[in-house]
């Protein structure tokens, strides 16, 4: 639930979260609380458990034990209905651009006339005007990811999860996506986004969750984590990141 | 419940396929390939259908299969040519009564070169003995049909069991008369066939009639109404009407007048 006074979207809390496969801990997060007003970026090397954590927060994966709560209540169907997710490679329905958005709106039982208005507004938000009738599968990588974000936004989510949405895109396309994310955040959507791009974290993050080998090694304000990291793992990752 | 569902389904299917038909407006006749392939039924049936309004649907298979289908009740009238099997069919209660309809005859057909030297003869048993002796290819139906049963009777009379040579000079096709004639034409084999199928057959190659006229080659056709007491669905009234017509003056005259290549193929002999 969004706080009516501050406009800050609902708090996400993780307690004793653990996932293990074949005796190896893939995720082990005793406590994490996301309650800041701006975008949270989850940063870390490949295999750190970033995507796994994101899927737990969205309820796509049930952890072996532990729980995810929103505003102190264990994540339920109502919460999930007000969460959107954008995947690393966009999964678009084999239909037109407009039909991809309509699919989501129709599921919310929005009347036809209103759906048309919403679709037009969304398309202009994503710079996809004029592509409404085009097949979604024929869009470029950047356009496809924009459509995936628009479709998630069509849910009018409180929280928007993004899993490395720009990892396959060129700098220009990446910039367009980042602007969309910031606009959504400014409108009060809680953004939780996974990236391994330090520059992106610097551009977008209000707070940063640094992960390594399934653990959260550091969580704090972006400036502090990036410029004065407390943990050795963060320092090592940021140093490596600066070299590349 | 299930029956209702099946009924509804069949009505739907029937409507879709456009098969809904007036009751007893047709009968199913289980018959043999010879009556159909010769063109006889196409020639005589329109007369009956015009007179009575009853559509005759002919299923043409081998005599053996025709009788088995009739035992299952899948036909109203049986029109075949294997007297012993027909009498057995009636004796077992599957048919009401057997009537003679007509006869035609079998002929022994073979290559013009006639390697067995049987040409011009009129003794089928002697001819088969010569074929077996020279071990030239002989094509047999091998399908328990009326023609096949007739062929086996003649081998039996000659004291020969050709099935011992199956796969060498004796070739069993397991198919209908036409398919067997195609095989014989292809390999230059001797073959026993009814004259009607032979005359209407279009792919003779260098085959010709070598032996004919033996009284033992006469081929009697009988007609039987499938017993409605065994199968309630049998269209007995319409079936009986067809049998009465076929064995009556109109049907007999129609059979007599059917010619192919200027030859009469079937000889009516209903009593």
């Amino acid at each position: 639930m969004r706080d009516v006074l501050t406009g800050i979207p609902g708090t996400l809390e993780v307690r004793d979260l653990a996932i293990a496969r074949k005796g190896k801990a893939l995720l082990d997060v005793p406590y994490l609380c996301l309650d800041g007003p701006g975008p949270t970026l989850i940063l870390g090397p490949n295999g750190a458990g970033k995507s796994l954590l994101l899927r737990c927060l969205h309820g796509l994966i049930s952890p072996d034990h532990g729980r995810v709560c929103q505003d102190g209540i264990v994540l339920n169907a109502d919460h999930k209905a007000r969460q959107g997710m954008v995947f690393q490679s966009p999964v678009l329905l084999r239909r037109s651009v407009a039909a991809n958005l309509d699919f989501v709106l129709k599921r919310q039982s929005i009347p036809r006339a209103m759906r048309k208005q919403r679709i037009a507004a969304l398309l202009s938000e994503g710079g996809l005007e004029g592509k409404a009738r085009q097949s979604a599968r024929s869009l470029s990588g950047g356009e496809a990811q924009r459509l995936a974000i628009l479709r998630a936004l069509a849910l009018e989510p409180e929280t928007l999860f993004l899993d490395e949405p720009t990892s396959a895109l060129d700098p220009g396309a990446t910039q367009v996506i980042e602007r969309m994310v910031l606009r959504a955040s400014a409108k009060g959507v809680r953004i939780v986004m996974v990236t391994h791009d330090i520059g992106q974290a610097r551009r977008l993050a209000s707070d940063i969750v640094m992960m390594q080998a399934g653990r959260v090694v550091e969580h704090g304000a972006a400036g502090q984590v990036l410029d004065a990291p407390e943990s050795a793992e963060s320092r090592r990752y940021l140093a490596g990141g600066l070299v590349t | 419940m299930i029956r209702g569902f099946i009924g509804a389904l069949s009505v739907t299917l029937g409507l879709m396929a456009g098969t809904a038909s007036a009751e007893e407006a047709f009968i199913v006749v289980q018959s043999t390939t010879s009556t159909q392939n010769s063109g006889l039924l196409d020639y005589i049936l329109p007369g009956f259908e015009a007179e009575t309004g009853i559509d005759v649907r002919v299923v043409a298979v081998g005599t053996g299969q025709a009788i088995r289908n009739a035992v299952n009740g899948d036909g109203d009238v049986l029109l075949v040519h294997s007297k012993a099997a027909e009498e057995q069919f009636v004796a077992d209660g599957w048919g009401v009564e057997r009537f003679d309809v007509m006869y035609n005859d079998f002929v022994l057909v073979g290559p013009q070169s006639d390697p067995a030297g049987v040409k011009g003869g009129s003794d089928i048993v002697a001819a088969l003995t010569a074929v077996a002796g020279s071990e030239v290819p002989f094509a047999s139906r091998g399908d328990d049909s009326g023609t096949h049963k007739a062929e086996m009777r003649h081998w039996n009379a000659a004291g020969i069991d050709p099935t011992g040579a199956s796969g060498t000079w004796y070739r069993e096709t397991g198919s209908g008369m036409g398919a067997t004639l195609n095989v014989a034409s292809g390999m230059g084999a001797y073959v026993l066939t009814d004259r009607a199928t032979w005359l209407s057959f279009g792919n003779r190659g260098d085959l010709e009639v070598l032996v004919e006229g033996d009284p033992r080659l006469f081929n009697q056709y009988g007609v039987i109404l499938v017993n409605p007491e065994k199968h309630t669905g049998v269209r007995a009234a319409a079936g009986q009407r067809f049998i009465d017509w076929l064995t009556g003056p109109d049907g007999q005259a129609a059979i007599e007048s059917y010619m192919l290549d200027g030859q009469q193929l079937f000889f009516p002999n209903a009593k």
Partner: protein
Amino acid sequence: MQGFASEFNQALSLILQGDAELWAIVLLSLRVSLFAVLISAAIGMPVGAALAVARFPGRRMLIILLNALMGLPPVVVGLLVYLMLSRSGPLGVLELLYTPTAMIIAQVVLVTPIVAALTRQVVEMLAEEYAEQLRSLGVSQMASVPVLLWDARLALMTALLAGFGRAIAEVGAVIIVGGNINHVTRVMTTTIALETSKGNLALALALGAILIGIAIAVNAMVSSLTLRAEREGLRHA
């Protein structure tokens, strides 16, 4: 085999002159097989899609069985349907033997496993791709079936055309349950069998040519659909 060329010419002229008897046979073939494919689609697609998304014990075995049923010998199907529809069979009271309906039933038995098995394959591939996204959008497993069927529509058309090709070219089943009755249940394949047995190769060839023409048309449709799918990026995998 002498006169083969002249028989082929005769066949050609029968087609070109639009011989009424010939075209009635062609139309019956098309009608029977189209109905059979429609019914097979109505049964096979939901079954195939459900099998693709549902998880239950014995599912693996069911898929193997379904794939095996794709190769059912038509004669065996014909015999089974005959035994069901025969007056002495369990469904004898329906009086369906030797009707086009009986032929439709036999073809449905032949084609449904093909449609179901191909649907299962296509939908399972698509479901793997869509699974997380659909769950993220709150679409339940059962509700995902129509979504997947619709999005796999082009590949499913190919499956239906494959089924249609099997149905229209099949002779073993329809000749047993249809009886090859003139003007009632005589279709292209049974006529070809009959005319061949009469040594009437001309008409048999004419019908064979039409059958090949339909096969070519069906394949052209499949390939143009595939082409369109590729152009629009609708093709998956």
